[in-house]
């Protein structure tokens, strides 16, 4: 896994760097309207990367990850609304609580496998959604039930996580995504990553080698929830509204999982690639056809999914890097021969 992927990634480095540069620089020079799409790309990339940390590595499909996104969003927003705590601090408190919550939830869930696991996470998501919708207060905290949390504008203050222009939001996301990808990469190359991959390929063998299955799954879960909670805080601050029927929705969970799966689960950059492919398609189609032919955009979305799976069943990451590599090899075949000789 590691060695292979590294070489892949670094051999396609021209494109990788190009891609990252586009993500870093281009949003500065486009309309706000395009910036929104970039923000959504990174937002979903962030969520999908977090999903990937636990599900991609362990090989179980969680279809309820929006719950943790929502918990993060709720906690940091409540801290802001009720305790006037800056989201910059609140998001860490939220992350810590979400991580603990994730571990508690994961404890029973990870006893299940395959479809049982996937569908239990669906049930969990629905349960939390209905619960929040129907309960105004929980433990004396006013969750405002189905109405959701409306964050008041407080003027463009950095301290309040509120910015005048989209680009600032964007760079906040860039930082979050960078951290997440870095964490993913570190995990992948550490004991944890080896253990998770081992668990994914054969839990029995893994256990016989002294790997505590639940412990490592839960560590991954904790990290994943910690990070996705940041995405939740971002969501709340960016849209300035957190409603249970969306943030805890099955649709949201599925979307997160889809992007990671289409990108390539268990890979470091897959989720980002998945988001780069799917989010613009959705946004474009929904804008173009949402008003005239409701349903068309989701229809095409479905077809795209089918095609991706049929032709790249393990996600777009490997085929795309392979393609980049071969293009690169052609483009730079000149200088390459000497390099290869040198290597040998």
């Amino acid at each position, binding site marked *: 896994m590691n060695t292979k992927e590294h070489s892949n990634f670094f051999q396609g480095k021209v494109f990788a760097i190009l891609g990252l540069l586009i993500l870093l620089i281009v949003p500065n020079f486009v309309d706000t*309207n395009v910036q929104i799409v970039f923000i959504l790309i990174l937002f979903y990339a962030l969520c999908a990367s977090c999903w990937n940390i636990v599900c991609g590595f362990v090989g179980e499909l969680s279809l309820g990850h929006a719950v943790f996104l929502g918990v993060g969003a709720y906690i940091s927003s409540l801290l802001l609304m009720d305790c006037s705590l800056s989201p910059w601090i609140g998001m860490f408190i939220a992350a810590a609580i979400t991580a603990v919550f994730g571990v508690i939830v994961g404890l029973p869930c990870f006893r299940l496998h395959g479809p049982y696991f996937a569908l239990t996470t669906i049930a969990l998501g629905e349960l939390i959604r*209905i619960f929040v919708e*129907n309960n105004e207060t929980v433990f004396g905290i006013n969750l405002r039930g189905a109405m*959701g949390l*409306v964050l008041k504008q407080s003027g463009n203050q950095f301290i309040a996580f509120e910015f005048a222009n989209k680009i600032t939001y964007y760079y906040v996301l860039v930082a979050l995504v960078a951290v997440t990808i870095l964490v993913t990469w570190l995990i992948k190359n550490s004991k944890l990553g080896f253990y998770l991959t081992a668990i994914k390929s054969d839990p029995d063998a893994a256990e016989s080698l002294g790997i505590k299955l639940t412990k490592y799954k839960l560590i991954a879960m904790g990290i994943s929830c910690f990070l996705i909670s940041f995405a939740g805080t971002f969501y709340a601050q960016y849209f300035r509204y957190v409603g249970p029927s*969306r943030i805890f929705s099955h649709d949201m969970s599925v979307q997160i999982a889809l992007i990671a799966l289409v990108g390539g689960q268990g890979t470091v950059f897959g989720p980002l690639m998945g988001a780069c492919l799917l989010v613009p398609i959705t946004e474009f189609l929904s*804008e173009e056809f*949402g*008003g005239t032919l409701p349903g068309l955009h989701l229809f095409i979305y479905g077809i795209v999914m089918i095609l991706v799976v049929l032709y790249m069943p393990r996600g777009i990451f490997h085929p795309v890097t392979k393609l980049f590599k071969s293009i690169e090899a052609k483009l730079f075949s000149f200088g390459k021969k000497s390099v290869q000789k040198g290597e040998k």
Partner: protein
Amino acid sequence: VPQTVAPAATEAPTQAAAATETTTTDSADVPVVKIGFVWPLTGNSATIGQQHSDGALMAIEEINANGGIKSMGGAKIEAVVYDSETSPDVGSSRVETLCTKDNVDIIVGCYNSAVTFPASEVAQRYSTPFISMGGVKNEITERGYEWVFRVNNKASYDVAEMLKGVDLCLQASPDTAAAVEADGGLTYALVYESTDWGSDNARIWKEEADKRGWTCVLDEPVTSGQSDMSAQAIKIKKANPDVINFSFYTNDAIVFTKALFANKINPRLGVWSVGGGSQDAAFYKACSPAEYEYSFVQEDWNVSMPYLYDWAAKISEDCYAKNGYYITSFFAQGWTAAKVAIAAIEAAGTNDKEAIRQALVNLDVKLEDCADSHIILTGYPEIKFDQDGQNTFSSGTIIQYQNGVQIGFSPLSAATPGYSPIIPIPDDFATRGSTSKPWGTAPEVK
């Protein structure tokens, strides 16, 4: 390409006409005014969003066919329609697109309160006038946003109207009132979907009912998407309320209504619906007249409009011809919201957003002046925004289905002449609905 009804759709006939004569105006010279719409066209409330859309687009068509915005030299109106997918984040992203890419002059949306909240905030941030339509949540216009206006009522209005309707019923039938009194006062059951809309209505109803000293015998939130509501029917039957109030969207409203009828549940003061699903044309296609006979609905428009005003009757016919249904609350809401936007632009006489906002602030339209402008199809006596941007005159009608026909009786101004509410509800399950007329039939004015 987003839906652009305007020039393309209406120019075809006019161009054909123009071709036979000579080209009168160079179409390139005519300025274009853009109105943005964000509606739920997919998802749970899609049928409703579709009717809004139908109404608004027909209103725009009408204006364009009649020479566009006069104060701007006959400017044509272009509608840019997006689907909110009933999701707050999609909705607010679309509003942002409207503000930045499409650069519209005014925005109308988004029906669901949960979507309207963040979406109207985006409009506020971009200093673009936003007309909230459909969303009844009080807080939408209580945030001090100067760019946000609401034509339709708040939730508290809806409920207040209904309770007033119940009062009227009690007055209309003193015997029933006495019987209710004798049984220890009026009792009611609240059944509602557990979304912000449903629970808001229930909460406000309770507050108002407490003031009147009524007793709540059942408070039942239901998760939306039920395929059977027999369990709820049993519960209601056991609670035996005088009034049932329900708030459901179309799908649950259908299932609920059928369950009530099957279980022969017949509260003496009737079944009252806040609207939502029971204002939807689809509801009436799915239910038989017997099932909704005698039920009360808070309609967000004056159902008597087509009978009171010829021009409204004409629009209703056109609507039927085009969409297969007569005017509904949602169609009327869409229509009026679009017309208000147009009126503001007409008054401003320019694309300048601040001028349009000012025009909205100053807007004052009375129903009786609408004979030519056809602005108010929703049956409000007047449209005038208060300092919060709320139209304080917005009011609906309480109607009762009698022989399958909508009979308005509250407020009195919207009452169908010659009718009064049937109270107590007769126990005629065997014959109920046998003489009912199809839905949409006009009442014979007595």
